[in-house]
């Protein structure tokens, strides 16, 4: 297997605080590698170093076995690109945004037109060329950013939490595009995520990162199969809980995650397990209503995060659950900090990881 990029003993400190500590990581050609870790674990710093826009305090970066130095950094930067978690678009049309990397590479106008159209088609934004990029919705903007990164076919595509700020529809479009680009264009992808479910399904390999250190690297089967200590300790990962799985009377499984919270799942695992519920799968309401959802909990909003078109809420029901709703729903429901709410999700939405 060809190693496309490698970090050797990379350490990064900011004002005496260690963000990355002696990272050794190899990235194989044509793979999708997920950096899985809680917020603040160093994923973004690692991606910025790989994107060659931040220099490590110590250690080396190699691209195709050639060390990146001050002399070749601008040349090497042409081989990689990073899509930021927070969408950064230029104040111009969608076309000019997507064409940016191609223009830098002195591509002919004819080819630029073709590649821009192709990239926009891939992200489902055909015909958006003349639209002002910043006037699109949050999800569409993130898709423009992805199209821009795809247009010039970088060897190494870096994605920082590509679906973190998106609604379910845009999230699944992004995941589909990521998988397609890797499968069809053989693009090597490194993506940061704190979404267990995404990490289990999308990448070929996972690197677990916590407190600036990589603790384990392996395939999703290896990482989730052995339910490593590091993984279990990722309490900070949203909606991931560890508990004892016991059979329930109706043939489902109940996982006791502590504090009196029992989660019902259709999975049949037994013993100690980690469960994950996608924030998009949780229905939030101000009153208790009759539904087919097997899991209903009452709690209070403890945190509100504005993510553009969507709002991410942390609801304390005894355990903290992250819920994602559209901004419109947020305002229509008149939600605020400390508002009492009900969470509901189906047993089939609970994944055992």
């Amino acid at each position, binding site marked *: 297997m060809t190693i496309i990029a490698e970090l050797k003993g990379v350490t990064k400190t900011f004002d005496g605080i260690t963000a990355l500590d002696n990272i050794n990581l190899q990235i194989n050609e044509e793979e999708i590698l997920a950096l899985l870790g809680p917020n603040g674990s160093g994923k973004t710093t690692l991606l*910025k170093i790989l*994107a*060659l*826009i931040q220099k490590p305090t110590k250690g080396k970066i190699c691209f195709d076995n050639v060390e990146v130095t001050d002399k070749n950094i*601008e040349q090497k*930067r*042409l081989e*990689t*690109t*990073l899509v*930021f978690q*927070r969408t*950064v678009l*230029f*104040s111009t049309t969608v076309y000019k945004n997507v064409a*940016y*990397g191609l223009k*830098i*590479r002195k591509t002919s106008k004819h080819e630029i037109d073709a590649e821009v159209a192709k990239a926009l088609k891939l992200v489902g934004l055909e015909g958006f060329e003349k639209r002002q990029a910043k006037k699109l919705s949050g999800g569409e903007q993130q898709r423009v950013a992805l199209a*821009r*990164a795809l247009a*010039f076919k970088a060897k190494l595509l*870096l994605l920082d939490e590509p679906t973190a700020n998106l609604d379910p529809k845009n999230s699944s479009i992004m995941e589909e595009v990521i998988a397609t680009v890797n499968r069809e264009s053989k693009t090597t992808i490194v993506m940061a995520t704190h979404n267990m479910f995404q990490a289990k399904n999308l990448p070929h390999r996972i690197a677990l990162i916590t407190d600036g250190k990589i603790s384990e690297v392996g395939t999703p089967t290896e990482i989730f199969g052995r339910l490593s200590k590091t993984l279990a300790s990722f309490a900070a990962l949203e909606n991931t809980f560890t508990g004892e799985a016991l059979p329930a009377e109706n043939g489902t499984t109940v996982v006791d995650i502590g504090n009196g919270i029992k989660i019902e799942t259709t999975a049949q695992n037994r013993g100690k397990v980690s469960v994950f519920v996608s924030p998009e799968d949780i229905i939030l309401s101000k009153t208790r209503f009759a539904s087919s959802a097997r899991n209903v909990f009452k709690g209070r909003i403890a945190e509100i995060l504005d993510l553009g078109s969507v709002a991410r809420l942390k609801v304390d029901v005894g355990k903290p659950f992250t819920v994602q709703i559209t901004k419109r729903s947020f305002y229509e429901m008149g939600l605020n900090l400390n508002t009492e709410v009900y969470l509901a999700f189906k047993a089939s939405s609970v994944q055992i990881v």
Partner: protein
Amino acid sequence: MKAFQLIFSGDPRVFEITLRALFVSGTATAIAIFIGVPIAMLIALKNFPGKFLVKGFFNTMIGIPTVGLGLILFLIFSKAGPLGFFGLLYTPTAIILGEAALITPIVVSLATTAIEAVDPDIMNQAKTLGASESQASITVLQEALGGIFLAGIASFNRAVAELGVAQMVGGNIEHWTEVLTTTISLETQKGNIALSIALAIILITIVFAITITVNIFQRRRK
């Protein structure tokens, strides 16, 4: 009435003075942008010792009294002054240079603010798309173009409406260094009120039109 007649009859002197004022102030603005924008980029995008002092200097220079600056430039351009051998005193070039010196701090200050207001990730985003350091800086500049345009407009406004510098280094010589403000001042003293009013209407119209343009531009940006 006579003032309006002067304006609408296409009086050659009114026309000549207006054109000169626009040319002198326009050229001064172009020079100020040419010098001021690179300085603004340096201040906004680079970290260097004493950066706050440089910023403070340009901010302070915005408020310099035009007569004070005019006097300094008079001393510099006068025969005994360090640049006296160029023979620039009482020429349109002297007014252009003087006004450029007056408005460059405005360009620097407003353009710095505009560049600093650009999303700091734009620079990094451009780099990750393959841009070199200079290409990324140009991209940042393009993002700040709206603010830089406003800086230029504000500077032109200041240049065309100022009196002190044009008076001191231009001398208001007929058919040579007369501009709107200096002629208004002199003709009023001479009692030629109709011409003064005509020129004042033109000056106010120019300033007013520019202000409206700026407002429309700002609204469109929002």
